[in-house]
């Protein structure tokens, strides 16, 4: 089967090995925010602000810092980075259950 070759143009625009920092370093902090990992998920947490008692357990346990706080209060989920592990739902106290995991199909 004939394979159509992709033009190289886009790649050429990226900097080459002579000009980028060595060792894969990024010369600033916090750049992980720009790498969106939210599309890896199969389930997503849905947070219910009515039920939430603001105990912070989900915020403490979330491995991806994806529980969003506003003015010191839990305000929802950062879906650009949440990987859908379900830890937040599991640690939310049984009497509260303010987070429910639902299939994420879009």
């Amino acid at each position: 089967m004939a394979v159509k070759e992709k033009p190289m143009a886009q790649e050429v625009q990226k900097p080459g090995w002579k000009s980028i920092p060595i060792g894969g370093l990024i010369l600033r902090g916090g750049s992980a925010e720009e790498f969106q990992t939210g599309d890896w998920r199969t389930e997503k947490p849905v947070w219910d602000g009515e039920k939430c008692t603001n105990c912070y357990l989900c915020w403490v346990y979330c491995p991806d810092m994806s529980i969003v706080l506003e003015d010191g209060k839990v305000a929802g989920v950062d879906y650009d980075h949440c990987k859908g592990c379900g830890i937040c739902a599991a640690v939310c106290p049984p009497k509260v259950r303010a987070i429910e995991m639902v299939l994420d199909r879009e």
Partner: protein
Amino acid sequence: MGNSALNEAVKSVALTGNEAVANAMRQVHPDVVAAYPITPQTEIVQIFSTFVADGLVQTEFVPVESEHSAMSATVGASAAGARAMTATSANGLALMWEVLYIAAGLRLPIVMPVVNRALSAPINIHCDHSDTMGARDSGWIQLYSENAQEAYDNVIQAVRIAEHPEVNLPVMVMMDGFIISHGMENVYPLADEEVRKFVGERKPHYTLLDADNPITVGPLDLQDFYFEHRRQQAEAMFNADKVVKEVADEFAKLSGRQYDFFEAYQLDDAEMAIVVIGSTAGTAKYVVNELRAKGVKAGLLKIRMFRPFPAARLREALTNVPAVAVMDRADSLAACGGPLFGDLRAALYSAGKRPLMNNYIYGLGGRDVTLDHIRTVYQDLEEMLRTGEVKREINYLGVRE
């Protein structure tokens, strides 16, 4: 030996290889040493920890629970801007494996003495080179030593090579387990101040602890940039050639001892030569002298720098030697000879004139290499010269059948 014995510039001191290397480390005075003991390297860390306890160095000594952690802690310290060292042997090196590549990939100038020892199984604590030969493509510079003096000198030079801004790569310094590490020899150490001045302060470009200039170390590096970073590593290895020479020349001015990528011994007019790494070179030189006294044009080439492999220089040095025996103290188990044999043959492929070459796997698990063993190798070379044929390409020297 007394801890302060080396504080004065002394003419010579009787030291084991391990003592010599531990003292080189004391004089280099790294900021951090994280290590785990393993025979035959144990003494290096043990002696160094005594220096720490006695206040002779201000090094942060981290006694970790495994070699994987030793290398990981060393990587962390080095990324934080510290001059960091560790040391290991054999299975300890094997346990570091994953992190060896990380140290090289992050371009951290870590210096690690490795006391060569056979890998398990069967378990064996004695010398061969299979541990570090396995790590030859991990991106570390590798310097091998013939004796305690060379191990001492190589550790000091390694710091400068590793931290050179055009290199920024980790360096392993090897010596033969027990034969060198526990054998006592006369060593001519430098004075503490001389070493401190020679190695200077580490000047990292970026460090994790520089809060005003935050950096990210070890981020994900996918299809669009990983290749470029590997290309940079390759370039650093090409640059190392020049830097290793510069550092050796500067070290010669200080110590009177001139190092090179390899040592050519009676090689200029040689009709036959052995290529060898480590302590066996001493034994083989004795046989070369013996043969020369009889008028036989025997020579020897001892490899000091195995990574990067000085291929062009070796090609030049060996192209005019009609018969060459390559001695490997490690078997690649690839059914095509040892690692040095493979690299040397590749280096000579593009030579106008190529020697007849064969390979000897020898000394595995600390098996003694005697003068008689070396004599038989030169006898084989004589026959090779006479007949113009390589009778057997891969030979196992000193093994019972």
